[in-house]
């Protein structure tokens, strides 16, 4: 058995070897919530998937959106998630759905939220 095959999967990301298995799943946007807001970034393997499908897409590497309290995170920013993932990917919501949709992951506490479903 190759050495790489023995490596356990890291919580919150997909090892490259398993990327093929995840190809049908949603693109992952990792988030980090802090005292004054939330940072959004496309997961590295999702970024590669996106590049393979839309080579010319131009996107921003991160988006930071502020809030007053952590408790208002979902209520305040939830309605903006589709716009945020479009900024992070540079493609339309329809194109993202065709790629399997988009999920938000917070590796700090395991929170997951679907932003767009796959078509």
């Amino acid at each position: 058995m190759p050495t790489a095959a023995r490596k356990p999967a890291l919580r919150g990301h997909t090892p490259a070897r398993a990327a093929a298995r995840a190809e049908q799943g949603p693109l992952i946007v990792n988030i980090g919530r802090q005292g004054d807001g939330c940072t959004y970034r496309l997961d590295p393997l999702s970024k590669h998937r996106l590049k393979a499908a839309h080579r010319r897409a131009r996107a921003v590497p991160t988006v930071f959106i502020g809030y007053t309290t952590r408790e208002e995170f979902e209520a305040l920013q939830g309605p903006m998630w589709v716009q945020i993932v479009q900024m992070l990917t540079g493609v339309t919501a329809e194109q993202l759905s065709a790629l399997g949709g988009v999920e938000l992951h917070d590796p700090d506490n395991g929170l997951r939220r679907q932003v767009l479903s796959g078509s």
Partner: protein
Amino acid sequence: MNKNYTGKSGQLAVMAEFLIRGYNVAMPEVDEGDDVFVVHHHVGTLWRIQVKTANARRERAGVTARFNVTTAQLLQERTPDLMFVFVVRSAERWSDFIVISRADLRELQAEFTIGKVLGASILFGLVFSRGTVRCGKQSFRRFRNAWAAWPALVHA
């Protein structure tokens, strides 16, 4: 040597490097995962720095230093993002500083599965040999003493 002494001495070596470049430094009073705050005094830019220090050993592949990074530190998105400085102590001197952003390390780890996952942390082994530095099969040369983000400032 006790790892507390090793870790703190590496942290102070990194702080000294920032100071000599003209950036102010501070140690957070509460441990939230950052070892050092670096501030560009004139424009107010702040960087979060996480310092990891290791005593290098000569092994068959070359001089090797291993750094333990918790999964939480590697995965957590933050603004401003975390910068890692891996400090290498070799032959009784500070031989190398590997300066790499959390996002870059995360991307390399995810794409090439570098590092060894040990429970809730990942052990990155850096091998220095003939002017190169590698982690697994990936070159880390571009991160070696990569202080370009902090050009020396001139203070009146």
